[in-house]
């Protein structure tokens, strides 16, 4: 195998592209954990639903796939609200095992429902940019991947502005720091929880739509990204959005470089080994606070 500079650059591009999808998923998981202190193992299934909804809207309405992602995001946000109100709200603050088992149950419900509705065969969302590439010296990058990075950047900027510049964001930050005090200050914590879950679900839906354009997916697609998203938020630091971004990029790049040099089966192994090394050096993650 002849490793050249263009080969390395291309590999870095693949790492950044997949890392961006992981970032969105991890960010959604992070804000849910940060604000609600809730561990949701069914978060990847929201990615799966987002992918299927984007596919359905694209094909049935003939919409541009990227426009379909926006609609899918709204629907999945509503699903997130329903899930939060009907399941997690009733057990929040109780035994953590309850949260785990509820989310495991949701995994089975979502996956089986998806299989019944859309079948077991894999699908892929075809975007208007399918097959088109930007030709650069020695390498070419598909426009879908460029758009994916752009969409993630825009989404994260919008999310950042929401958190930092709006009253809702302020309320979310207050609730994440101490929900009892937030309540005393007049913040409707239950409404904040609902909004947080909706936003986290919407981010998962965007990740799902992008994933479905770049890769194929089926009803079981959510499992592995969920594990990776958890790894990223631990790597970056629980509750840290900056950490999720850096962690996602780092994970994606390390995974792809390991694949290039050692083979595909080593990608995840090396990436998780990096996680272990980081946690040994910084037990709270790269940007984690003590006590998380």
């Amino acid at each position, binding site marked *: 195998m*002849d490793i050249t500079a263009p080969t390395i650059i291309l*590999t870095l591009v*693949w790492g950044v592209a997949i890392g961006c999808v992981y970032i969105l998923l991890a960010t959604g998981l992070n804000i849910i954990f940060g604000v609600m202190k809730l561990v949701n193992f069914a978060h990847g299934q929201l990615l799966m639903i987002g992918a299927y909804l984007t596919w359905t809207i694209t094909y049935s309405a003939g919409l541009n796939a990227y426009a379909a992602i926006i609609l899918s995001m709204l629907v999945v946000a509503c699903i997130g609200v329903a899930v939060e109100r009907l399941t997690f709200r009733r057990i929040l603050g109780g035994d953590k095992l309850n949260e785990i088992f509820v989310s495991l149950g949701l995994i089975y419900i979502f996956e089986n429902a998806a299989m019944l509705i859309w079948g077991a065969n894999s699908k*892929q969302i075809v975007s208007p940019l399918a097959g088109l590439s930007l030709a650069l010296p020695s390498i070419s990058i*598909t426009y879908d991947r460029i758009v994916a990075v752009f969409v993630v950047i825009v989404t994260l900027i919008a999310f950042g502005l929401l958190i930092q510049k709006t009253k809702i964001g302020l309320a979310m930050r207050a609730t994440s720091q101490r929900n009892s005090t937030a309540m005393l200050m007049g913040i409707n914590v239950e409404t904040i929880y609902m909004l947080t879950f909706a936003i986290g679900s919407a981010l998962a839906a965007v990740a799902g739509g992008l994933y479905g354009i770049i*890769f194929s997916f089926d009803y079981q697609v959510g499992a592995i990204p969920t594990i990776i998203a958890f790894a990223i938020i631990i790597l970056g630091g629980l509750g840290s959005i900056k950490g999720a971004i850096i962690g996602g990029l780092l994970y994606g790049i390390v995974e792809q470089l390991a*694949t290039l040099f050692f*083979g*595909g089966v080593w990608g995840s192994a090396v990436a998780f080994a990096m996680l272990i090394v980081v946690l040994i050096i910084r037990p709270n993650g790269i940007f984690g606070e003590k006590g998380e």
Partner: protein
Amino acid sequence: MQKKLLAVIVVIIIVVAIVAAIQLSMSPAPSADARDIMIGLVAPISGSPVGQDMERAARMAVQEINDAGGIHVSSWNTNVNITLVIADTINDAPTNAVAPVTRAVETDKVDLLIGGYGSAGTLANEIVAIENKVPFIITGASNELVTRRGPQGNYGGFGANGANSVSDSDGMSYMFHYCTTTYHYSKTVVDFFANEMKPMVAPDRNFSLAILYRNDAFGQGVEQAVKFWIQDENLPITLVADRNYDPTTTNYQTDLTAVATTNPDAVLVVDNPDKSPLIIKQGWNDVGLKTVYIVIENNQDQAFYDLIGSTGDGQLLESRFNPFMDPSYSTAVQAYVEKFDQLYPHTMPGMMGADTYDAFFIAKAAIESAGTIDKVAVRDAIETTNMDQSLIPTQSGKIEFSTGVNYHEILPLTFVEQLKWDEATSHLTSQIVWTPNSNSDLKQADFTLPTGYEPGQ
């Protein structure tokens, strides 16, 4: 004169009637032991579209046989129907694949088993059939160990203490493999590259082949088989890349980037129909690896055609059963597809379903030849099967299992198809461009290099 003629005719009629009555009275009555023949279908019905295809094919075969009068069992002096017993192996994982077969054999007391999907699941559940000496016509599972793991197959080369080896040669004699094996179709692939494609792109050097395969028993089996044939037949092929990946991934760009650095003339992709198209699309479109990709026969599936789209134009598929060609290359296949469509509208039949369908007729012929449902006699009858080929072409044109002390396999005829994108209909079609048997009349067109193809080095 007329009266005499009339009298003669009446006498003849009376004599014939008396003779017929005597004959009927001499025919033995059906035996009191006569009952339906219980055939167990072993397939992952609730967990796999392929399993569902096998069930549809099985039910169609059973309905046809029963509607035509069933199976004649001479020892019972009557025809009897088939009752299908479903042994649903769910997802065919070894942990799920054994109990349904145990139930079929020990509780339902099936007379014969047909099916088997994946190699790992079949290697696990055929132990039940081996121990209970139940004839099992295995219509899936490309690993040849399913019939070669015993003494008569030299334990598949792994020795008597191999992890999958079975010492019971008598029990193994009840196993019959009606399916291509990894070694069968891998040979077709490398022979195609050596004999057909090499003269076109690499007349003065070895053909550069890359393999990209899923890291499980299936992928590893094909990789080993390809290496075996290249060495065994001393083929002018150099394996320039030999990479595997986690079966759960859908991100192949980096592996394809690494393959691209080796400048292959072709890439053999070993995965299932939901993943292979993605690999080819990422290779051709994302990485710029504009080469010939070949996939193997398990990709003869609507999902493959739907997912690969126009990127499939010019690419190759090794196969032994294609229900999508219209007109078909085989009248038997055409008839099967039409019957299938009548019974299951808008559902295309698959390859393992076709194997399964044939297997029911093999079983029927064997039981009728044996004249009994005694398992030893049925086994012996399957062993001496000599039917005309049906949905699966064979090298001799006959369905024959190797006999004597050897393992029981057929010698299928596999072929290479080239896909073509039809702009007018936005669909992929295919034509057979190569068969291992140069005398075969299956070939429909010459192989051509895909538009935009870049030869390796």
